[in-house]
């Protein structure tokens, strides 16, 4: 682990050198406005505090401090669902959302896929991962192959586990719907960014009699997942899932850091409400201005 920190230090140095070189000529020009966006200093402070909190908790975790995280029912259900699929001898279907890899929700989904693939590898349960974008295909193949190799089940890996199905949203949906009715997966896991197809997929899966677990950060699709799935991870829980499933203390650090910031946010909002209510909060209100 120490080795890794050295790796990180080198680029930081390079980066700051680079930064210096680009800022310097601009400062020399002299100008009415500085090169740095001073008006965004609030965001910078916020990002730094946030990062510090996450890193601090991660460090404590590494030092062996036990970090408590409550049970999250939807995530616990993932393992159960794979177990049921194994008993029934039927596949598990995993859909990492319908966005490209340049959406953080998709990255969260890919990371959860890595954990799920380990479980299916362990039980030797067939896994099906249809994807809509080729970059997601590449990342998905990478994590699944890795998971199977790590569990010593390379023989069960085949690169068509993760397959590109169709580029267009509704073409993807119609193909996956057909897949659900024909292959009858025992469990469907939907994680990531979903749009109008959320209900189309979940309702078909329900008709096919599969156990369904969904997770998305998009509030507008959550009602439909809740109506048609057995378990739904809402918003933040999607991002928590990969840490939680990994069961590594290091990963839980991030979760604890988030919680710490959440408490701070609640306190800041309450202070704001009180100040604004008594009409003395103008300066405070402006501190949170997005520029």
């Amino acid at each position: 682990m120490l080795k890794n920190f050295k790796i990180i230090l080198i680029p930081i140095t390079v980066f700051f050198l680079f930064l210096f070189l680009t800022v310097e000529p601009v400062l020399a020009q002299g100008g009415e406005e500085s090169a740095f966006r001073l008006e965004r200093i609030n965001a910078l402070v916020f990002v730094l505090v946030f990062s510090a909190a996450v890193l601090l908790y991660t460090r404590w975790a590494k030092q062996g401090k036990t970090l408590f995280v409550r049970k999250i029912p939807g995530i616990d259900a993932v393992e159960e669902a794979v177990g049921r699929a194994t008993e029934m001898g039927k596949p598990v279907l995993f859909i990492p959302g319908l966005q490209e890899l340049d959406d953080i929700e998709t990255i969260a989904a890919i990371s959860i896929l890595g954990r799920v693939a380990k479980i299916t590898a362990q039980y030797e349960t067939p896994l099906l991962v249809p994807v809509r974008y080729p970059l997601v295909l590449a990342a998905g193949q990478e994590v699944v192959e890795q998971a199977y190799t790590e569990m010593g089940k390379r023989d069960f890996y085949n690169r068509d586990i993760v397959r590109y199905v169709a580029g267009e949203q509704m073409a993807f949906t119609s193909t996956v719907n057909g897949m659900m009715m024909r292959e009858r997966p025992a469990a469907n896991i939907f994680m990531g960014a979903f749009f109008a197809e959320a209900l189309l997929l979940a309702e078909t899966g329900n008709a096919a009699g599969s156990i369904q677990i969904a997770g998305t950060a998009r509030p507008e699709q959550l009602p439909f997942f809740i109506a048609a799935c057995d378990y739904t991870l809402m918003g933040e829980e999607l991002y928590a899932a990969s840490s939680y499933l990994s069961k590594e203390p290091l990963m839980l650090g991030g979760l604890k850091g988030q919680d710490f910031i959440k408490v701070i946010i609640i306190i800041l909002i309450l202070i704001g409400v009180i100040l604004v209510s008594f009409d003395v909060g103008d300066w405070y209100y402006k501190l949170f201005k997005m520029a």
Partner: protein
Amino acid sequence: MRTTVPVVIAFLSGLVLAVSIFFRPDKTIIGQIEPEILVWVTIVGGFTLFLGAVSITRVNFNTVRRRKKGWGYSLLTLISVFVMALPSLLPSSWSPLFGDAEGSIYDWLFQYLDKPMMATMFGILAFYIASAAYRAFRARSAEATILLLTATLVMLWRVPMGEAFLRSIHVALPELINTYVMNGVNMAVQRGIIIGAALGAASMSLRIILGIERTYMGKG
């Protein structure tokens, strides 16, 4: 080597982009980097179009070659991919059927096959929304009851007879639903979920930049 290089690349690209937002684009090179890198990401994604085509071809070709169940359908998919893709890659100066302008094969297939398919898939949503409501809106628990009552109330409000009915209970009832349910509770909850999810996304991002989370590059 196989893990270190990707970790360093992820760290560098992440850090540069995170920092660039704090610099003015017209004054610094670093400030201009953000839009440039976004184009780069798109370009990398653009190259993968062949990987997608290879994947879909391989899966379907194997089905056809081994005469697996339903191989006819796979053959159809294969043909469709090429009928659509190939003419669009050829320059339109060769024939008006090539390229992607109006009158090309690409455009015709999109207009008359793809579009109605999409529209019909959207049409299926109305059926599913009814069956999902029927099945899920049961008063099994306090939470489920709240869900079903609000959904019913809002559905009533959205059609003429329902709205008239609500107005007959109290003239201001539709206004109240709009103010307190839609703009009050609904907005507050969306906001709470957005803040929470944003924290989750930010912490995920931080883990990737720092190489703590690297499932995708050979380390679980």
